[in-house]
Protein backbone atom coordinates (compact mmCIF):
# COMPACT_ATOMS: atom_id res chain seq x y z
CA UNK A 1 0.00 0.00 0.00
CA UNK A 2 2.78 2.37 1.02
CA UNK A 3 4.84 1.56 -2.08
CA UNK A 4 1.97 2.17 -4.48
CA UNK A 5 1.39 5.54 -2.87
CA UNK A 6 5.00 6.65 -3.29
CA UNK A 7 4.97 5.61 -6.93
CA UNK A 8 1.79 7.57 -7.55
CA UNK A 9 3.28 10.58 -5.84
CA UNK A 10 6.45 10.39 -7.94
CA UNK A 11 4.37 10.10 -11.09
CA UNK A 12 2.21 13.07 -10.16
CA UNK A 13 5.29 15.10 -9.27
CA UNK A 14 6.90 14.30 -12.64
CA UNK A 15 3.68 15.04 -14.49
CA UNK A 16 3.52 18.46 -12.85
CA UNK A 17 7.13 19.26 -13.83
CA UNK A 18 6.48 18.06 -17.39
CA UNK A 19 3.29 20.09 -17.72
CA UNK A 20 5.03 23.15 -16.29
CA UNK A 21 7.94 22.78 -18.70
CA UNK A 22 5.51 22.35 -21.57
CA UNK A 23 3.78 25.59 -20.65
CA UNK A 24 7.10 27.43 -20.38
CA UNK A 25 8.30 26.11 -23.76
CA UNK A 26 5.10 27.03 -25.55
CA UNK A 27 4.34 30.25 -23.73
CA UNK A 28 6.46 32.41 -26.08
CA UNK A 29 4.73 30.91 -29.10
CA UNK A 30 1.18 31.18 -27.77
CA UNK A 31 1.66 34.68 -26.36
CA UNK A 32 2.86 35.88 -29.72
CA UNK A 33 0.02 34.41 -31.70
CA UNK A 34 -2.57 35.95 -29.39
CA UNK A 35 -1.08 39.42 -29.56
CA UNK A 36 -0.94 39.31 -33.34
CA UNK A 37 -4.73 38.94 -33.41
CA UNK A 38 -5.78 40.94 -30.38
CA UNK A 39 -4.75 44.55 -29.87
CA UNK A 40 -3.35 45.52 -26.47
CA UNK A 41 -2.02 48.67 -24.84
CA UNK A 42 -1.31 49.96 -21.33
CA UNK A 43 -4.98 49.71 -20.40
CA UNK A 44 -5.03 46.01 -21.13
CA UNK A 45 -5.93 43.54 -23.80
CA UNK A 46 -8.85 44.36 -26.06
CA UNK A 47 -10.23 40.91 -26.75
CA UNK A 48 -13.29 42.19 -28.58
CA UNK A 49 -11.21 43.97 -31.23
CA UNK A 50 -9.42 40.85 -32.44
CA UNK A 51 -8.77 40.88 -36.19
CA UNK A 52 -6.45 39.85 -38.96
CA UNK A 53 -5.77 43.47 -39.77
CA UNK A 54 -2.06 43.28 -38.91
CA UNK A 55 -1.60 40.38 -41.27
CA UNK A 56 -2.92 42.41 -44.17
CA UNK A 57 -0.78 45.36 -43.23
CA UNK A 58 2.24 43.12 -43.20
CA UNK A 59 1.79 42.22 -46.85
CA UNK A 60 1.88 45.89 -47.79
CA UNK A 61 5.28 46.24 -46.15
CA UNK A 62 7.85 46.15 -48.97
CA UNK A 63 10.85 45.40 -46.77
CA UNK A 64 9.10 42.44 -45.15
CA UNK A 65 8.13 41.00 -48.51
CA UNK A 66 11.68 41.31 -49.82
CA UNK A 67 13.04 39.70 -46.64
CA UNK A 68 10.66 36.77 -47.12
CA UNK A 69 11.73 36.40 -50.75
CA UNK A 70 15.45 36.56 -49.87
CA UNK A 71 15.06 34.02 -47.07
CA UNK A 72 13.25 31.50 -49.25
CA UNK A 73 15.64 31.99 -52.16
CA UNK A 74 18.71 31.58 -49.96
CA UNK A 75 17.20 28.51 -48.30
CA UNK A 76 16.29 26.77 -51.55
CA UNK A 77 19.65 27.41 -53.22
CA UNK A 78 21.65 26.43 -50.12
CA UNK A 79 19.63 23.23 -49.69
CA UNK A 80 19.98 22.26 -53.36
CA UNK A 81 23.76 22.79 -53.31
CA UNK A 82 24.14 21.04 -49.96
CA UNK A 83 22.05 18.08 -51.17
CA UNK A 84 24.23 17.71 -54.24
CA UNK A 85 27.43 17.90 -52.16
CA UNK A 86 26.04 15.56 -49.49
CA UNK A 87 25.20 12.85 -52.05
CA UNK A 88 28.64 12.98 -53.68
CA UNK A 89 30.45 13.03 -50.35
CA UNK A 90 28.34 10.20 -48.93
CA UNK A 91 28.73 8.02 -52.05
CA UNK A 92 32.46 8.59 -52.03
CA UNK A 93 32.96 8.02 -48.31
CA UNK A 94 30.74 4.94 -48.15
CA UNK A 95 31.55 3.13 -51.38
CA UNK A 96 34.88 4.35 -52.66
CA UNK A 97 36.64 3.97 -49.32
CA UNK A 98 37.80 7.55 -49.04
CA UNK A 99 41.38 8.14 -48.00
CA UNK A 100 40.68 10.76 -45.38
CA UNK A 101 37.29 9.37 -44.48
CA UNK A 102 37.30 10.34 -40.79
CA UNK A 103 38.76 13.76 -41.50
CA UNK A 104 36.23 14.52 -44.22
CA UNK A 105 33.35 13.49 -41.94
CA UNK A 106 34.68 15.57 -39.09
CA UNK A 107 35.00 18.62 -41.35
CA UNK A 108 31.47 18.15 -42.70
CA UNK A 109 30.04 18.03 -39.16
CA UNK A 110 32.26 20.87 -37.99
CA UNK A 111 30.03 23.91 -38.75
CA UNK A 112 27.14 22.09 -37.11
CA UNK A 113 29.01 21.23 -33.91
CA UNK A 114 30.91 24.47 -33.43
CA UNK A 115 29.21 27.56 -32.00
CA UNK A 116 27.68 29.42 -34.98
CA UNK A 117 29.63 32.55 -34.05
CA UNK A 118 32.85 30.72 -35.01
CA UNK A 119 31.49 29.66 -38.40
CA UNK A 120 30.09 33.15 -38.94
CA UNK A 121 33.17 35.17 -38.10
CA UNK A 122 35.63 32.82 -39.80
CA UNK A 123 33.63 32.92 -43.04
CA UNK A 124 33.26 36.70 -42.74
CA UNK A 125 37.03 37.25 -42.47
CA UNK A 126 37.68 34.71 -45.22
CA UNK A 127 35.27 36.31 -47.70
CA UNK A 128 36.69 39.68 -46.85
CA UNK A 129 40.19 38.40 -47.58
CA UNK A 130 39.39 36.82 -50.93
CA UNK A 131 37.23 39.79 -51.86
CA UNK A 132 33.70 38.41 -52.06
CA UNK A 133 31.31 41.18 -51.00
CA UNK A 134 28.75 40.27 -48.36
CA UNK A 135 25.26 39.52 -49.57
CA UNK A 136 23.04 36.68 -50.74
CA UNK A 137 25.98 34.64 -52.05
CA UNK A 138 27.92 34.68 -48.80
CA UNK A 139 24.80 33.79 -46.81
CA UNK A 140 24.13 30.91 -49.20
CA UNK A 141 27.67 29.57 -48.67
CA UNK A 142 27.31 29.87 -44.88
CA UNK A 143 23.96 28.08 -44.89
CA UNK A 144 25.30 25.39 -47.22
CA UNK A 145 28.15 24.68 -44.78
CA UNK A 146 25.66 24.46 -41.92
CA UNK A 147 22.96 22.24 -43.46
CA UNK A 148 25.45 19.98 -45.27
CA UNK A 149 25.97 18.10 -41.98
CA UNK A 150 22.27 17.23 -41.68
CA UNK A 151 21.87 16.14 -45.29
CA UNK A 152 25.11 14.19 -45.28
CA UNK A 153 24.11 12.33 -42.12
CA UNK A 154 20.68 11.36 -43.50
CA UNK A 155 22.00 10.32 -46.94
CA UNK A 156 24.84 8.31 -45.40
CA UNK A 157 22.51 6.41 -43.04
CA UNK A 158 20.23 5.54 -45.95
CA UNK A 159 23.18 4.46 -48.08
CA UNK A 160 24.43 2.15 -45.31
CA UNK A 161 21.04 0.44 -45.17
CA UNK A 162 21.14 -0.19 -48.92
CA UNK A 163 22.68 -3.36 -50.35
CA UNK A 164 25.73 -2.75 -52.48
CA UNK A 165 24.95 -5.96 -54.44
CA UNK A 166 22.16 -3.99 -56.14
CA UNK A 167 24.76 -1.66 -57.62
CA UNK A 168 26.91 -4.60 -58.70
CA UNK A 169 23.91 -6.29 -60.29
CA UNK A 170 23.13 -3.12 -62.18
CA UNK A 171 26.70 -2.88 -63.44
CA UNK A 172 26.67 -6.56 -64.45
CA UNK A 173 23.57 -5.93 -66.51
CA UNK A 174 25.49 -3.32 -68.46
CA UNK A 175 24.27 -0.10 -66.89
CA UNK A 176 26.64 2.83 -66.90
CA UNK A 177 27.47 4.42 -63.54
CA UNK A 178 25.10 7.27 -64.30
CA UNK A 179 22.29 4.88 -65.17
CA UNK A 180 22.96 2.91 -61.98
CA UNK A 181 22.68 6.09 -59.98
CA UNK A 182 19.55 7.21 -61.81
CA UNK A 183 17.62 3.92 -61.65
CA UNK A 184 19.05 2.08 -58.63
CA UNK A 185 20.64 4.42 -56.10
CA UNK A 186 18.51 7.55 -56.44
CA UNK A 187 15.13 5.87 -55.79
CA UNK A 188 16.63 4.50 -52.57
CA UNK A 189 18.05 7.85 -51.49
CA UNK A 190 15.05 9.98 -52.42
CA UNK A 191 13.09 9.65 -49.15
CA UNK A 192 16.16 10.59 -47.10
CA UNK A 193 16.91 13.51 -49.41
CA UNK A 194 13.37 14.85 -49.13
CA UNK A 195 13.34 14.55 -45.33
CA UNK A 196 16.79 16.11 -45.12
CA UNK A 197 15.80 18.96 -47.42
CA UNK A 198 12.77 19.86 -45.34
CA UNK A 199 14.84 19.75 -42.15
CA UNK A 200 17.63 21.77 -43.78
CA UNK A 201 15.10 24.29 -45.09
CA UNK A 202 13.68 24.71 -41.57
CA UNK A 203 17.19 25.31 -40.21
CA UNK A 204 18.09 27.79 -42.95
CA UNK A 205 14.76 29.60 -42.54
CA UNK A 206 15.56 30.31 -38.89
CA UNK A 207 19.35 30.77 -39.05
CA UNK A 208 20.44 33.99 -37.36
CA UNK A 209 23.84 33.69 -35.70
CA UNK A 210 25.82 32.86 -38.86
CA UNK A 211 23.68 34.96 -41.19
CA UNK A 212 24.20 38.17 -39.23
CA UNK A 213 27.95 38.00 -39.93
CA UNK A 214 27.52 37.36 -43.65
CA UNK A 215 24.49 39.44 -44.58
CA UNK A 216 25.88 42.86 -45.43
CA UNK A 217 22.88 44.81 -46.70
CA UNK A 218 20.78 41.74 -47.38
CA UNK A 219 17.96 41.11 -44.93
CA UNK A 220 16.48 37.75 -44.11
CA UNK A 221 13.38 37.21 -41.97
CA UNK A 222 15.26 36.56 -38.70
CA UNK A 223 17.44 39.63 -39.28
CA UNK A 224 14.40 41.72 -40.19
CA UNK A 225 12.64 40.56 -37.02
CA UNK A 226 15.70 41.36 -34.94
CA UNK A 227 15.79 44.83 -36.45
CA UNK A 228 12.08 45.43 -35.90
CA UNK A 229 12.37 44.34 -32.27
CA UNK A 230 15.12 46.78 -31.48
CA UNK A 231 12.83 49.58 -32.55
CA UNK A 232 9.91 48.49 -30.46
CA UNK A 233 6.91 46.24 -30.13
CA UNK A 234 4.22 46.41 -32.74
CA UNK A 235 1.37 44.05 -33.53
CA UNK A 236 2.83 43.93 -37.03
CA UNK A 237 5.87 42.11 -35.63
CA UNK A 238 3.62 39.62 -33.89
CA UNK A 239 1.82 38.94 -37.15
CA UNK A 240 5.09 38.26 -38.97
CA UNK A 241 6.24 36.15 -36.04
CA UNK A 242 3.10 34.03 -36.14
CA UNK A 243 3.55 33.38 -39.85
CA UNK A 244 7.21 32.48 -39.30
CA UNK A 245 6.29 30.11 -36.46
CA UNK A 246 3.60 28.48 -38.54
CA UNK A 247 5.97 27.87 -41.47
CA UNK A 248 8.69 26.44 -39.18
CA UNK A 249 6.10 24.32 -37.39
CA UNK A 250 4.79 22.82 -40.62
CA UNK A 251 8.30 22.04 -41.88
CA UNK A 252 9.31 20.45 -38.57
CA UNK A 253 6.13 18.33 -38.48
CA UNK A 254 6.70 17.11 -42.04
CA UNK A 255 10.30 16.17 -41.20
CA UNK A 256 9.25 14.48 -37.95
CA UNK A 257 6.53 12.40 -39.61
CA UNK A 258 8.88 11.38 -42.40
CA UNK A 259 11.63 10.40 -39.95
CA UNK A 260 9.16 8.21 -38.06
CA UNK A 261 7.52 6.52 -41.06
CA UNK A 262 9.10 3.44 -42.69
CA UNK A 263 9.70 5.06 -46.12
CA UNK A 264 11.75 7.86 -44.65
CA UNK A 265 13.24 5.90 -41.76
CA UNK A 266 16.61 7.25 -40.87
CA UNK A 267 17.50 7.24 -37.23
Amino acid sequence: MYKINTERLIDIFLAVITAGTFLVLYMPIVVNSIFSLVPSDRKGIHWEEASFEWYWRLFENESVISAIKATLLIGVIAVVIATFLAIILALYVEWEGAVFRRTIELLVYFPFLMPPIITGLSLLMYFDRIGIPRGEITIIIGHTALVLAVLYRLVLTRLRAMQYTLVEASADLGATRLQTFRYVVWPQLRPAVITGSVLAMAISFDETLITVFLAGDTTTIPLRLWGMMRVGFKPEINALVTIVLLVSFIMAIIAAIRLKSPEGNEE
Partner: protein
Amino acid sequence: MNYQLTRFAIIIFVIAVPGVLVIFPIGNFFLMSFWQMENNQIVKIFSFSNYLYFFSSPAYWGTFLSTLYLCLKVSVIGVLVGYPVAYFIWKRKGWLKYLLILLFILPLFMSYIVKIYTMRAILDLSGILNKLLVAIHILQEPSRQFIYNQTAILITMVVIFLPFIILPIFLSLERIPKNLVNASSDLGAGTLTTLRHIILPLSLPGTISGALFTFVLALGDFVTPQMVGGPNGFTFSRVIWSQFGLAYNWPLGAALGVILFTTALFIIISAGLASQQSKV
Protein backbone atom coordinates in the same frame (compact mmCIF):
# COMPACT_ATOMS: atom_id res chain seq x y z
CA MET B 1 40.95 6.74 -69.28
CA ASN B 2 37.87 8.86 -69.00
CA TYR B 3 36.87 6.99 -65.85
CA GLN B 4 40.26 7.68 -64.24
CA LEU B 5 39.81 11.36 -64.97
CA THR B 6 36.32 11.44 -63.48
CA ARG B 7 37.57 9.63 -60.40
CA PHE B 8 40.38 12.10 -59.97
CA ALA B 9 37.94 14.99 -60.36
CA ILE B 10 35.70 13.50 -57.70
CA ILE B 11 38.60 13.10 -55.25
CA ILE B 12 39.63 16.71 -55.77
CA PHE B 13 36.03 17.78 -55.32
CA VAL B 14 35.55 15.76 -52.14
CA ILE B 15 38.66 17.31 -50.62
CA ALA B 16 37.88 20.78 -51.94
CA VAL B 17 34.41 21.06 -50.38
CA PRO B 18 35.47 20.80 -46.72
CA GLY B 19 38.57 22.78 -47.63
CA VAL B 20 36.66 25.76 -48.96
CA LEU B 21 33.89 25.60 -46.37
CA VAL B 22 35.96 24.86 -43.27
CA ILE B 23 39.76 24.57 -43.48
CA PHE B 24 40.56 27.85 -45.29
CA PRO B 25 38.15 30.01 -43.25
CA ILE B 26 39.33 28.51 -39.95
CA GLY B 27 43.00 28.79 -40.98
CA ASN B 28 42.52 32.41 -41.99
CA PHE B 29 40.68 33.05 -38.73
CA PHE B 30 43.60 31.68 -36.68
CA LEU B 31 46.06 33.73 -38.70
CA MET B 32 44.03 36.91 -38.23
CA SER B 33 44.17 36.49 -34.45
CA PHE B 34 47.91 37.17 -34.56
CA TRP B 35 47.57 40.39 -36.53
CA GLN B 36 46.96 43.91 -35.27
CA MET B 37 44.71 46.86 -35.71
CA GLU B 38 46.40 50.18 -36.28
CA ASN B 39 44.57 53.36 -37.28
CA ASN B 40 41.50 51.37 -38.30
CA GLN B 41 43.63 49.24 -40.60
CA ILE B 42 44.51 45.58 -40.21
CA VAL B 43 48.31 45.27 -40.07
CA LYS B 44 49.68 41.89 -41.00
CA ILE B 45 52.46 41.62 -38.42
CA PHE B 46 52.64 38.40 -36.46
CA SER B 47 52.51 38.85 -32.68
CA PHE B 48 50.79 37.53 -29.59
CA SER B 49 49.64 40.97 -28.49
CA ASN B 50 45.91 40.21 -28.84
CA TYR B 51 46.25 37.21 -26.58
CA LEU B 52 48.43 39.12 -24.11
CA TYR B 53 45.82 41.86 -24.11
CA PHE B 54 43.12 39.33 -23.23
CA PHE B 55 45.09 37.82 -20.34
CA SER B 56 46.22 41.16 -18.98
CA SER B 57 42.83 42.86 -18.91
CA PRO B 58 40.52 41.64 -16.13
CA ALA B 59 37.51 43.01 -18.03
CA TYR B 60 38.07 40.41 -20.76
CA TRP B 61 39.02 37.30 -18.85
CA GLY B 62 36.59 38.25 -16.11
CA THR B 63 33.80 38.22 -18.69
CA PHE B 64 35.15 34.94 -20.03
CA LEU B 65 35.04 33.28 -16.60
CA SER B 66 31.63 34.69 -15.70
CA THR B 67 30.32 33.44 -19.07
CA LEU B 68 31.63 29.94 -18.33
CA TYR B 69 29.84 30.10 -14.97
CA LEU B 70 26.64 31.28 -16.65
CA CYS B 71 26.80 28.41 -19.17
CA LEU B 72 27.40 25.95 -16.33
CA LYS B 73 24.28 27.23 -14.60
CA VAL B 74 22.28 26.93 -17.84
CA SER B 75 23.42 23.30 -18.23
CA VAL B 76 22.82 22.32 -14.62
CA ILE B 77 19.35 23.88 -14.46
CA GLY B 78 18.67 22.33 -17.87
CA VAL B 79 19.49 18.85 -16.55
CA LEU B 80 17.56 19.37 -13.30
CA VAL B 81 14.43 20.29 -15.28
CA GLY B 82 15.09 18.22 -18.39
CA TYR B 83 15.84 14.90 -16.72
CA PRO B 84 12.50 14.55 -14.89
CA VAL B 85 10.68 15.61 -18.07
CA ALA B 86 12.58 13.11 -20.25
CA TYR B 87 12.03 10.41 -17.65
CA PHE B 88 8.30 11.11 -17.46
CA ILE B 89 7.95 11.01 -21.25
CA TRP B 90 10.00 7.82 -21.45
CA LYS B 91 7.65 6.15 -18.92
CA ARG B 92 4.59 6.80 -21.12
CA LYS B 93 3.45 4.07 -23.48
CA GLY B 94 2.75 3.77 -27.19
CA TRP B 95 1.83 6.79 -29.30
CA LEU B 96 1.58 9.14 -26.31
CA LYS B 97 5.31 8.79 -25.68
CA TYR B 98 6.23 9.79 -29.23
CA LEU B 99 3.67 12.55 -29.38
CA LEU B 100 5.07 14.02 -26.15
CA ILE B 101 8.71 13.85 -27.23
CA LEU B 102 7.75 15.42 -30.57
CA LEU B 103 5.98 18.26 -28.74
CA PHE B 104 9.05 18.88 -26.61
CA ILE B 105 11.42 18.94 -29.60
CA LEU B 106 9.23 21.09 -31.86
CA PRO B 107 10.07 24.37 -30.10
CA LEU B 108 13.63 23.88 -31.42
CA PHE B 109 12.36 24.75 -34.87
CA MET B 110 10.35 27.70 -33.72
CA SER B 111 12.19 30.85 -34.56
CA TYR B 112 15.04 31.48 -32.19
CA ILE B 113 14.83 35.25 -32.43
CA VAL B 114 11.10 35.18 -31.76
CA LYS B 115 11.59 33.16 -28.59
CA ILE B 116 14.10 35.68 -27.26
CA TYR B 117 11.81 38.54 -28.18
CA THR B 118 8.82 37.02 -26.42
CA MET B 119 10.91 36.06 -23.40
CA ARG B 120 11.85 39.72 -23.15
CA ALA B 121 8.20 40.71 -23.21
CA ILE B 122 7.38 38.07 -20.59
CA LEU B 123 10.21 39.02 -18.22
CA ASP B 124 9.75 42.77 -18.60
CA LEU B 125 8.53 45.06 -15.84
CA SER B 126 5.02 45.02 -17.30
CA GLY B 127 5.34 41.41 -18.47
CA ILE B 128 3.34 38.31 -17.68
CA LEU B 129 5.82 36.99 -15.11
CA ASN B 130 5.59 40.10 -12.96
CA LYS B 131 1.81 40.25 -13.32
CA LEU B 132 1.59 36.62 -12.22
CA LEU B 133 3.93 37.03 -9.24
CA VAL B 134 2.04 40.11 -8.06
CA ALA B 135 -1.31 38.37 -8.54
CA ILE B 136 -0.30 35.45 -6.34
CA HIS B 137 1.26 37.83 -3.80
CA ILE B 138 4.84 36.62 -4.09
CA LEU B 139 5.82 40.14 -5.07
CA GLN B 140 4.31 43.33 -3.70
CA GLU B 141 4.92 45.22 -6.92
CA PRO B 142 6.46 44.44 -10.35
CA SER B 143 10.19 43.92 -10.12
CA ARG B 144 13.01 44.76 -12.51
CA GLN B 145 15.13 41.86 -11.35
CA PHE B 146 14.10 39.57 -14.22
CA ILE B 147 15.09 41.77 -17.13
CA TYR B 148 18.25 43.42 -18.47
CA ASN B 149 20.68 41.52 -16.27
CA GLN B 150 22.45 38.15 -16.03
CA THR B 151 19.34 36.50 -14.53
CA ALA B 152 17.35 37.39 -17.62
CA ILE B 153 20.03 35.80 -19.82
CA LEU B 154 20.02 32.68 -17.65
CA ILE B 155 16.22 32.26 -17.72
CA THR B 156 15.97 32.91 -21.47
CA MET B 157 18.80 30.52 -22.32
CA VAL B 158 17.31 27.74 -20.20
CA VAL B 159 13.94 28.13 -21.93
CA ILE B 160 15.49 28.20 -25.41
CA PHE B 161 17.98 25.35 -24.93
CA LEU B 162 15.83 22.99 -22.84
CA PRO B 163 14.74 20.85 -25.84
CA PHE B 164 18.43 20.28 -26.65
CA ILE B 165 18.85 18.66 -23.23
CA ILE B 166 15.57 16.73 -23.10
CA LEU B 167 16.18 14.95 -26.42
CA PRO B 168 19.59 13.35 -25.66
CA ILE B 169 18.42 12.28 -22.19
CA PHE B 170 15.29 10.73 -23.71
CA LEU B 171 17.37 8.93 -26.37
CA SER B 172 19.75 7.53 -23.77
CA LEU B 173 16.78 6.34 -21.67
CA GLU B 174 15.35 4.68 -24.79
CA ARG B 175 18.54 2.67 -25.19
CA ILE B 176 18.24 1.06 -21.76
CA PRO B 177 17.03 -2.51 -22.35
CA LYS B 178 13.52 -2.94 -20.93
CA ASN B 179 14.45 -6.32 -19.39
CA LEU B 180 16.99 -4.67 -17.08
CA VAL B 181 14.26 -2.44 -15.70
CA ASN B 182 11.82 -5.38 -15.46
CA ALA B 183 14.44 -7.56 -13.75
CA SER B 184 14.99 -4.83 -11.20
CA SER B 185 11.32 -4.58 -10.34
CA ASP B 186 10.94 -8.40 -10.33
CA LEU B 187 13.62 -8.50 -7.67
CA GLY B 188 11.45 -6.20 -5.59
CA ALA B 189 13.04 -2.83 -6.23
CA GLY B 190 10.74 0.17 -6.13
CA THR B 191 10.71 2.97 -8.68
CA LEU B 192 13.28 4.97 -6.74
CA THR B 193 15.67 2.04 -6.24
CA THR B 194 15.50 1.11 -9.93
CA LEU B 195 16.02 4.74 -10.85
CA ARG B 196 19.06 5.07 -8.63
CA HIS B 197 20.80 1.79 -9.42
CA ILE B 198 19.77 1.06 -13.00
CA ILE B 199 18.36 4.02 -14.89
CA LEU B 200 20.47 6.91 -13.62
CA PRO B 201 23.86 5.19 -14.11
CA LEU B 202 22.92 3.93 -17.58
CA SER B 203 21.56 7.26 -18.81
CA LEU B 204 24.36 9.29 -17.25
CA PRO B 205 26.66 9.43 -20.34
CA GLY B 206 23.82 10.66 -22.56
CA THR B 207 22.84 13.22 -19.95
CA ILE B 208 26.39 14.52 -19.64
CA SER B 209 26.85 14.84 -23.38
CA GLY B 210 23.49 16.63 -23.67
CA ALA B 211 24.52 19.02 -20.91
CA LEU B 212 27.88 19.70 -22.58
CA PHE B 213 26.27 20.48 -25.94
CA THR B 214 23.92 22.87 -24.21
CA PHE B 215 26.94 24.46 -22.59
CA VAL B 216 28.47 25.06 -26.03
CA LEU B 217 25.21 26.51 -27.37
CA ALA B 218 24.98 28.91 -24.44
CA LEU B 219 28.65 29.81 -24.84
CA GLY B 220 28.23 30.83 -28.48
CA ASP B 221 24.97 32.75 -28.10
CA PHE B 222 25.35 36.50 -28.51
CA VAL B 223 21.80 37.51 -29.41
CA THR B 224 20.21 36.52 -26.09
CA PRO B 225 22.64 38.64 -24.02
CA GLN B 226 22.10 41.54 -26.36
CA MET B 227 18.30 41.32 -26.34
CA VAL B 228 17.58 40.57 -22.67
CA GLY B 229 20.90 41.33 -20.98
CA GLY B 230 20.82 45.10 -21.32
CA PRO B 231 23.95 47.14 -20.57
CA ASN B 232 25.05 44.81 -17.75
CA GLY B 233 24.46 41.57 -19.59
CA PHE B 234 27.82 41.12 -21.25
CA THR B 235 28.92 37.62 -22.15
CA PHE B 236 32.06 36.52 -23.93
CA SER B 237 30.33 35.93 -27.28
CA ARG B 238 28.67 39.33 -27.11
CA VAL B 239 32.13 40.87 -26.58
CA ILE B 240 33.43 39.00 -29.64
CA TRP B 241 30.41 40.08 -31.67
CA SER B 242 31.01 43.73 -30.73
CA GLN B 243 34.55 43.50 -32.19
CA PHE B 244 32.95 42.85 -35.56
CA GLY B 245 30.44 45.63 -35.15
CA LEU B 246 30.91 48.92 -33.36
CA ALA B 247 34.30 48.25 -31.78
CA TYR B 248 35.66 47.16 -35.18
CA ASN B 249 38.75 45.25 -34.17
CA TRP B 250 38.77 42.06 -36.22
CA PRO B 251 42.17 40.76 -35.06
CA LEU B 252 41.17 41.07 -31.39
CA GLY B 253 37.78 39.55 -32.21
CA ALA B 254 39.58 36.68 -33.94
CA ALA B 255 41.87 36.11 -30.93
CA LEU B 256 38.89 36.05 -28.57
CA GLY B 257 37.19 33.76 -31.10
CA VAL B 258 40.16 31.38 -30.97
CA ILE B 259 39.80 31.23 -27.18
CA LEU B 260 36.09 30.48 -27.57
CA PHE B 261 36.85 27.93 -30.29
CA THR B 262 39.41 26.12 -28.12
CA THR B 263 37.01 26.02 -25.17
CA ALA B 264 34.15 24.74 -27.35
CA LEU B 265 36.39 22.12 -28.98
CA PHE B 266 37.51 20.86 -25.59
CA ILE B 267 33.90 20.56 -24.42
CA ILE B 268 32.72 18.87 -27.64
CA ILE B 269 35.52 16.31 -27.38
CA SER B 270 34.54 15.71 -23.74
CA ALA B 271 30.95 15.23 -24.85
CA GLY B 272 32.09 12.73 -27.49
CA LEU B 273 34.11 10.82 -24.90
CA ALA B 274 31.17 10.88 -22.46
CA SER B 275 28.80 9.37 -25.00
CA GLN B 276 31.36 6.64 -25.78
CA GLN B 277 31.29 5.68 -22.10
CA SER B 278 27.70 4.61 -22.54
CA LYS B 279 27.34 1.02 -21.34
CA VAL B 280 24.20 0.15 -23.24
